[in-house]
């Protein structure tokens, strides 16, 4: 077993354990912080996969923005946080069963992917993945349309979210 495999296994275990804690912990703020740990683990995976841009963006966007938003939301709706009742539905075992079923189904499907046991070739010589990504995102024969549509989507989300949560000055 190589060092890289050990690092992967440790990270994977960290991700899965903290993900389990996200869905089971009673205190919602702790759940949000465990989510941060799980997301950080995913960033480590991206780094192992040599997707350096995605690794840092994962931290900037997920931990720096999305997790902060979650924490704010938890604090704004705090009364529920210390709810003494159960945090799961009475029929949680159905959910567990479904989750396990999907998990086994996915594993069966994914192991059938051709070349599932392959190890990656080295990155092409002189390939700057960040530069290539930027090139792909803005060149018309690649992904410029999804790129612009993403910004429109975010604009729509901003307008919708601000409208829904609206607490500003009533005009």
């Amino acid at each position, binding site marked *: 077993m190589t*060092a890289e495999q050990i690092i992967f296994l440790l990270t994977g275990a960290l991700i899965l354990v903290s993900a389990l804690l996200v869905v089971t912990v009673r205190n919602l*703020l*702790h759940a949000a*912080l465990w989510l*941060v740990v799980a997301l950080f683990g995913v960033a480590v995976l991206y780094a192992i996969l040599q997707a*350096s*841009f995605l*690794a*840092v*963006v994962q*931290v*900037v966007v997920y*931990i*720096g*923005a999305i*997790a*902060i938003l979650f*924490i*704010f939301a938890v*604090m704004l709706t705090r009364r529920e946080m210390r709810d003494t009742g159960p945090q799961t539905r009475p029929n949680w075992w159905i959910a567990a069963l479904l989750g396990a079923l999907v998990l086994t189904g996915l594993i069966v499907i994914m192991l059938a992917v051709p070349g599932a046991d392959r190890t990656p070739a080295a990155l092409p010589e002189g390939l*700057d993945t*960040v530069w290539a990504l930027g090139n792909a995102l803005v060149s018309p024969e690649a992904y410029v349309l999804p790129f612009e549509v993403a910004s429109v989507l975010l604009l729509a989300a901003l307008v919708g979210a601000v409208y829904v949560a609206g607490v500003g000055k009533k005009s």
Partner: protein
Amino acid sequence: MNFWNDPINFIANWLTGLLTGWGLAAGLATVLVYLVGITVLIVFAMLLDIGLVWVERKVVARFQDRLGPNRVGPFGLIQPFADIIKLVIKEDITPANADKVIYNIAPVLAATSVIALWAILPLSSRIFGVDLNVALLYLVATGALGTLAIIMGGWASNNKYALLGAFRMVANMVSYEIPMVVTLLIPTILADSMSVIGITEAQRGLWFAVLSPLGAVIFLISAIAELGRSPFDLTEAESELTAGFNVEYSGMKFGWFYASELLHAFTFGGFAAVLFFGGYGGFFGLEKALPWLTNPFIEAAVFIAKAMLGYWVIMWLKYSMPRVRIDHMLAFNWKFLVPLSLVLLAVTATLHKILIVLPGWQYALGMFFSNVVIVAATIEVLRDYGRKQRKAAEELAPQAQL
């Protein structure tokens, strides 16, 4: 390769050779060499941090017409060590209702988020941790961890003032992150690189502060807000929030919040130097005539001096400006800095693309004057706005006197 031209690689090669000579595997030897290098770098940063405590106290004393520490050792130089001993032997009080685990993690995370910046800080062209090709985003990412540390500390203390301070601080930090990220894009465009070494090397001939002075100013303002220093120091609003998010912290845990704030300020001084003021280099081509300027030790000295200067500017602002109210602060960001920085980015990108074909000095002149025009237009818009506001106030005034 000799020690004076390339000290890090020289020592690293020597150590690797030594370790592999003892029969260690090459991979393990590399990891060990990394660990040694990292430990030395972090210890250097920590020693510098201790020095910064002294600098900060001396400088604030001079600003306030006092002497500052002068009893312990010559010029009070031993004072910070006395401070540390005091902090370590002080009783560490944890509030009874605190969320203990998060309460203990927060100061460590705050310190780590600042220390992590040193991994990419280029002290010289040959003395640096690592030259990431996404270094600028790494800078933003560590800021995200710092934000998280503040909200964890504020929440876990189980104190309304701490939580309120954390909320304000986080609202402040995340808001000012936007103009900061936008101004980080400007050196990226100008240097065509996101790595700190690439950006510094691109400024060999001319600093980016000349090509984009407005960008440098916006970066400095948003960096100060990101640091949470005065005039944006809502964490330390003693009169209204007792002391902000760290009010319940005592002993060394408080010490880490304090130490990381100082080191953060210095590090941001360093990054301002890297991004806009030529970093370790930027001698305007002088190094061709005087080759000794590219010696790594000279470069490191230049870098530290520039970072200290940036740190001094941050202190200068801190100790001469009053605190800004939170609504003013957020309005200043969202209604002024964000639109301005976005306009600046659009103009810089367009002009850079058009003017790059011109000879160097025409290009530089064009970029500089585009900034001047933006500043002039901004001032005109603000003046117009102010005039309207005054008029509205004057129309209301007679009724108010009744």
